[in-house]
């Protein structure tokens, strides 16, 4: 009797057993597969916000990379020596393809590109939104995608970038910087096209007045004008400026920004460090103060410290004070840059009077008298580069400008053995 009971129990358990398998699903978040199947407008809006939020990932590191190599700033860190060794070429060090300064920003930008590709696919597949709304999502995604690819191309230059990355097992080839810029430009153009028939039903955080379809078009053209001058297409740049929010006499700070906040899941501005810190600090390169014209109010972007900061043979007595709080926004593109693009395009087109007008608007906006030097193309280009240097200080432009004008050799070397790098190697995972 006891035998039988036991056997029945075991038998029953094993039956219950075999049908009792569990598939728990992903308890910790939404999955890509569920989104690309058929997403609603609110789910797509989450993707849009995530994309906008992702623009800020490793942004401080990107600004550090460009600012340090461009000799605008130093980042002294007691725990990370490579800001002053590898990035400055000190002591024979080289840029390593497995180090954080290239692998982290590269990965973050492509993560946003991935999000944009998912957004495009999800919007295309969705049956719950109108065509006009789809175009809104698609245009936004293409514009942001172009912007992210541009940021990576800025770092790797002739080493290039991949353009087509939508299939992770079949990634597109690397293209060099000329082809890359062309591809970015055409991506922006197709987004502009799509915006023509778009309806925007998502909210953006840092776009201000440029968050609707016309505004996004202007933002798109602003980025396009930057790409134009990188390519040397001066006339196209002027045309694109006219369709952007460029305003010669307008506020320098009109534009689109990365914004920060203290809410749950949000980020703070990682570039911000309070003044007069020790241990971890961002300080201005001494040449910032030594090269500036007297009276220029942009000296306030680098405030004097109470004590000189030094590390490993470098020192500086000025803190960087461009972003003045942990929630201070970082510009993506703003009017002051557009004015400078206007100046550059005109000077390069030999339209010196228009170029000079723009230069003087910048100068007077910063407490300087009108330009009184030679009015030749070469001298005005030098003046334009000076203005870009100080207006766009620590906004991620200096190294790129010096590189595209072949002036990297003019950047100061602080220690014997230091070097100015021309580009970053491709991250080791791309080999």
């Amino acid at each position: 009797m006891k035998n039988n009971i036991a056997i029945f129990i075991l038998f029953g358990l094993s039956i219950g057993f075999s049908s009792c398998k569990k598939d728990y699903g992903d308890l910790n978040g939404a999955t890509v597969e569920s989104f690309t199947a058929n997403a609603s407008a609110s789910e797509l809006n989450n993707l849009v916000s995530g994309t906008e939020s992702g623009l800020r990932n490793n942004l401080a590191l990107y600004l550090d990379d460009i600012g340090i190599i461009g000799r605008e700033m130093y980042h002294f860190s007691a725990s990370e020596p490579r800001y002053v060794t590898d990035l400055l070429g000190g002591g024979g060090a080289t840029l390593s393809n497995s180090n954080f300064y290239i692998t982290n920003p590269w990965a973050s930008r492509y993560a946003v590109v991935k999000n944009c590709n998912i957004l495009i696919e999800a919007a295309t597949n969705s049956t719950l939104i109108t065509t006009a709304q789809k175009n809104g999502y698609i245009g936004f995604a293409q514009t942001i995608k172009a912007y992210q690819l541009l940021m990576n191309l800025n770092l790797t230059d002739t080493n290039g970038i991949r353009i087509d990355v939508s299939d992770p097992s079949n990634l597109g080839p690397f293209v060099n910087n000329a082809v890359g810029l062309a591809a970015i430009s055409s991506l922006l153009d197709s987004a502009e096209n799509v915006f023509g028939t778009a309806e925007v039903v998502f909210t953006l955080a840092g776009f201000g007045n440029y968050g609707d379809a016309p505004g996004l078009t202007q933002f798109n053209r602003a980025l396009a004008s930057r790409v134009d001058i990188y390519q040397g297409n001066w006339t196209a740049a002027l045309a694109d400026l006219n369709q952007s929010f460029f305003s010669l006499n307008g506020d320098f700070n009109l534009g689109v920004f990365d914004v920060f906040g203290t809410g749950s899941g949000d980020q703070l501005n990682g570039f911000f460090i309070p003044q007069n810190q020790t241990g971890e600090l961002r300080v201005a390169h001494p040449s910032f103060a030594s090269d500036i014209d007297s009276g220029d109010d942009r000296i306030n972007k680098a405030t004097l410290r109470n004590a000189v900061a030094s590390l490993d043979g470098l020192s500086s007595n000025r803190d960087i004070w461009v972003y003045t709080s942990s929630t201070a926004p970082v510009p993506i593109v703003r009017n002051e840059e557009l004015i400078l693009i206007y100046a550059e395009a005109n000077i390069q087109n030999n339209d010196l009077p228009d170029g000079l007008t723009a230069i003087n608007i910048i100068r007077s906006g910063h407490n300087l008298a009108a330009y009184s030097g030679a009015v030749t193309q070469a001298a005005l280009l030098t003046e334009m580069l000076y203005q870009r240097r100080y207006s766009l200080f620590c906004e991620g432009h200096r190294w790129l400008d010096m590189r595209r004008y072949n002036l990297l050799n003019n950047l100061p070397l602080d220690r014997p053995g230091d070097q100015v790098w021309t580009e970053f190697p491709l991250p080791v995972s791309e080999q």
Partner: protein
Amino acid sequence: MIWLLSGFALPYLAFSQERTLSGKITDANGNALPNVSITLRQGSQGTITDADGKFRLTVPANAVLTISSSGYRTQTIKAEDLTGEIHVKLTEDVAHLDEIVVTGLATSVKRRNLANAVSTISARELSGVAPAQTFDMALEGKIPGAYINSNDGAPGGGISVKLRGVTSVYGNTQPLYVVDGVFVDNTATSAGLNVVTAALANGAATSNANGGTQDNPSSRIADLRAEDIENIEILKGASAAAIYGSKAAAGVVIITTKRGREGRTKISVSQDFGFIKVRKLLGVRQFTAARAASLSSDSATGVALAAEFTEAQSKGQIYDYEKEIFGNTGFARNTSLNISGGNAKTGFYFSAAQRDEGGIVRNTGYSNSSLRLNLDHHITDDIKIGIETNYINSSADRGLTGNDNSGVSLGIALSSTPSFAQLHDSAGVYPNNPFAASNPLQTVALMTNNESVNRFITGLNLDATLQKNSASVTKIIGRGGFDFYNLETNAIFPSILQFQAINKGTSIQGFTRNLNTNYILSLVNTWTPSDRVSLTSSAGLTEETGDYNNILDVATQVISGQTNINQAGALNATQLRTKYQNQGIFIQEEANINEVWMLTGGVRFDRSSNNGDVAKYYVYPKAGLSWNLTKMDFFRSDLFDNIKLRAAYGEANNVPAYGSKFTAFNISNITGNPGLIVNPQEGQPDIKPERQKEFESGIDFSLFKGRLGFELTYYLKNIYDFLMQSNPPSSSGFTSAWANAGNLRNQGVELGMNARLIATKNISWTTSVNFWLNRSLVTQLTIPSVPQGSFGYVLGSFQIQQGKSATQILGLDGTGGVSKLGDAEPAFQMSSYNEITFFNKLSLRFLLHWKQGGQNINLTNLENDFGGTSADYDNVTNKLGVPDGVYRIMQVGTDAHEFVQTASYLRLREIGLYYLFNKLPFEFVKSIQIGLSLNNYLTITKYKSYDPEVSNFGTGFSSGVDVDPYPATKRGDFHISFDF
């Protein structure tokens, strides 16, 4: 007194056909043996001898007694053969041949018939020499074949146990711990310190990556109390552990806790007092005005520093901050009470213990309180049930050490702070540290990093005989239980701290709730058709479930003086949940032929909700054979009294990590708009478990009537489809993808010798010496090979490459290329446990451990060089003639040889001297033992950092990376225990 009682007992016994037996058990020299187990061959509790070797037991007249004790040959005596006062002499069995060892989920066999090399640790070896702070620290040096590495010296444990080489790269590398049949959890949960340290500079709250974490958590196995443990068996690979299924690929540690026996209720109280000190300090640079000036390249600053130095020197204000931070002496105490006893039907074991220890850093320490009750009861002669319950409350304050990118961990802050800095407080107000982002004295005084655990482990077992006759016994055996804990991590950094200038106060509260349940239900039949053959068949079902829920709240801009997460301006929360269910069916057959041949074979079918295909049953077979040559007719030898050849084979698996099937989204919000961004880990919908196939063979023999025993084992472990996170090109949007990436092989030898070197009446010396080594090789890799597990080639990195050792370290070699600079695998390890007893009263016990070879990646010295504070900065021993500190910094970016250092050591891990008083004038105290012990007091090593045992990345694959850890400690204790 015994004569009197037997006089009373005899008339009673004559009526009820029972007898009371009493007597004494001694060894061959007549020395009394306490704790010898006397049981009836089928049925009741049995008893154990007291401190004088005496026992008393009531048995049926026709009973057969089994007398056994660890280290001695078991004897079987019929009660009717015993008359009067009984005196049994046990002969030595230094090879532990009669020890019962678990071989299946419900079966066990004597060691003399065992086909595997199963290591055991007795209670005496575990905590009877120099008790360690936590259970995992107590395992060090005691498991041949294992590479045990302590993460650092922080209170509360944190140790990696790798049995027979690396079993996995990013999958589970730690063994399964089973306590009385309950599968206990050993997760290490991060407290979210990455928010403050930014060790993984991606803004996440934890630095969990690549199977490890840099937030220095302890692992939960540290909660167990070593004093409650009767013995530990370690199944080191699939050939032994196959029957345990999904979690057993890295081995199984089977822990059995103490039980009560029939007899007088025994009460034992013990008290330890001790101290804990740092094992070694690195020292600080001796400054002069010129050296102070050279800390800055700017001449004006240099002059100011030199002046600062001169002023400090003139006022006598030069300090050794390393000593001030790490030089505290922690006071330790441990009190434990245990009561055990029982009668013929019931036995109980109760223990209560409380430990409280300080650390070498102020405001750090560990405390652990535990209550346990084990109860066994025979409902009838055929049905036995038991329950083991344990409640543990522990609290560890671990300080803030290890890697960071913000200059706040103690070691990193000290690395740039010279001896003339003025960091002391005046009336509780600390000055800012101009040399680092934090003032370490202020950090130590004001921060909190606490892990508190409340844990319940309960096991139930049932043993019911369904059928019994002279040839066959059938039983149903059920074991199961649950392991539940609540872990609260509490990391508080008040706003007044120097490094809280941006966050203005940080409070990181973590709440983890974990429930593991498991049961094993099996039917076991033992068929003995004749005296010469015995067949044991077992079959059954198992199921394990787990439910883990971790919520981490990071509050910043915290109101001054407050710690609650709502008393803050900003709150970020993350939640991680994992759930799994594993099911298995097993069948096993063991045949014992004439005590000469022992054959076993078995198979397990296993499925798990973590696999890509949740319904698929994976098959894991096992087989084993042992051949006792001495029992063969042709064998005649007086020299050898036991020779056994053995071979075993088994397969086991390691399930994929939870969630590796999915490509998920992460939250990424921007000013109130909730956003989703794709998780950089690509999911793999058809992910498979890792499969391990192990073949093990060996020979065990003993000589000189059991005085000398040898156990020699060779093993070959192949791991197929090992799980690894590949690094896809990050342009895909993913930086990692789980993949079944290739095959890996470990092979090695374990050689053990046990001997009774001296065995006279007054002095005895038993020793065991073990030698073991392991070599790993990646036999196939299907994904691109990249550096991982450390900080890149510049500083030395691990890399999995086909055709190379799995633990190799590559780095820049000074000629412009990358080559192999070392290997974390030791060349070999040896350990020796010795016990010398004088006059049966004074006992000296010690454990030596020698690890030869094996390299660490030592970055602690580099951090100190970089900050200009290393003790040997100004020595000139290099070929360039510059100060050594400068020379070493110059190597960064060209040559990583400097950072890959050999971490060999010879350690006197434990030494204890004990004296036993057992002839006492008081009746109620049976014996008193006093002792002194030292842990970790003597280490001989050339390694140039705090300790060769270190791991910045926790218990994962990459061990041995040294970045300013919490320094290792040594301790001394005084013990006194009373037996009533």
